[in-house]
């Protein structure tokens, strides 16, 4: 049974968003470039998928634009600029480092620094041992724990 299932799994095609082979460029090298580049571009409809992974209409249109422009000899940075001019930095899955995204990029470093500072401070003054119980407290405790 398991073997049959494994065989069936092998037979099933991987789920690529490009279900229509007509979308792909005839030159496999160029197509590979388009796929690689498309993976860095955000689908504006699904917002957490790249245009290569998304099944949305707009993603299909953008895939087509990327391929047409690549085939016409435009470079990836040129196409990226063209898209950013229309959709803003949001179209890039990896946000560029700007003043606005500085906090985002710096956050891992900030977390490390704050954590390290807390550790150092805890080492420097370990919390004082608790004060011994007063006479009244000791009596109360005895009363509570007597069986």
């Amino acid at each position, binding site marked *: 049974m398991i073997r049959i299932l494994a065989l069936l799994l092998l037979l099933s095609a991987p789920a690529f968003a490009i279900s229509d082979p007509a979308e792909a460029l005839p030159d496999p090298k160029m197509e590979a470039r388009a796929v690689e580049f498309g993976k860095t571009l955000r689908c504006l409809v699904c917002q957490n998928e790249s245009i290569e992974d998304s099944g949305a209409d*707009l993603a299909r249109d953008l895939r087509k634009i990327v391929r047409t422009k690549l085939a016409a000899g435009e470079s990836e940075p040129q196409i990226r600029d063209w898209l950013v001019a229309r*959709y803003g930095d949001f179209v890039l899955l990896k946000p560029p480092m700007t003043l606005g995204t500085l906090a985002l990029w710096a956050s891992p470093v900030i977390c490390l620094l704050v954590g390290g500072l807390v550790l150092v401070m805890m080492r420097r003054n370990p919390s004082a041992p608790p004060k011994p119980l007063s006479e009244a407290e000791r009596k109360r405790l005895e009363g509570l724990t007597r069986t």
Partner: protein
Amino acid sequence: MNRRLLLLAPLGLAAIGGVSFYAMLRGMKRGTFDPRGIPSQMLDKPLPDFDLPGFNRADVLKNARPILINFFASWCAPCIDEAPILLKLRQAHVPLWGIAYKDKHEATDAFLVRQGNPFAHLAHDDAGTVGIEWGITGVPETFLVDAAGIVRWHFAGPLPPEAADALATRFTS
């Protein structure tokens, strides 16, 4: 006392979270906050060149007064919700031009008969290329273009009634 304060700290954080969440939900309900919204790159920039069956950039400029341009489609459910709001704008004499986005012409015409036609002019963006040129991510989206052909305001999604009222008063005054 100090310990009491420390105990209150998580409560305070939860309260801040709760208030922010409430503000966010209220903004979403009123249409002033859209968590999926993407700021338009067209703001304060001249309208890109376009030539569609229906009207082109020159027609918009010839008009020489501010207009609203609305992208819509017959296949878009939020556009049905927006239809009465657009009709109200038309009644308030707000110049409203429509661009049918990736829609069959017959389907667009049937939609405008069914929902009422709020548009003074209608163009067809069959391939959706003008939509991409303007950076729209879906329909409906609305652009306010001033007399000089500069985009002054943009809204993605059906216009909230409050926004439509504000536009109507701005246009009539």
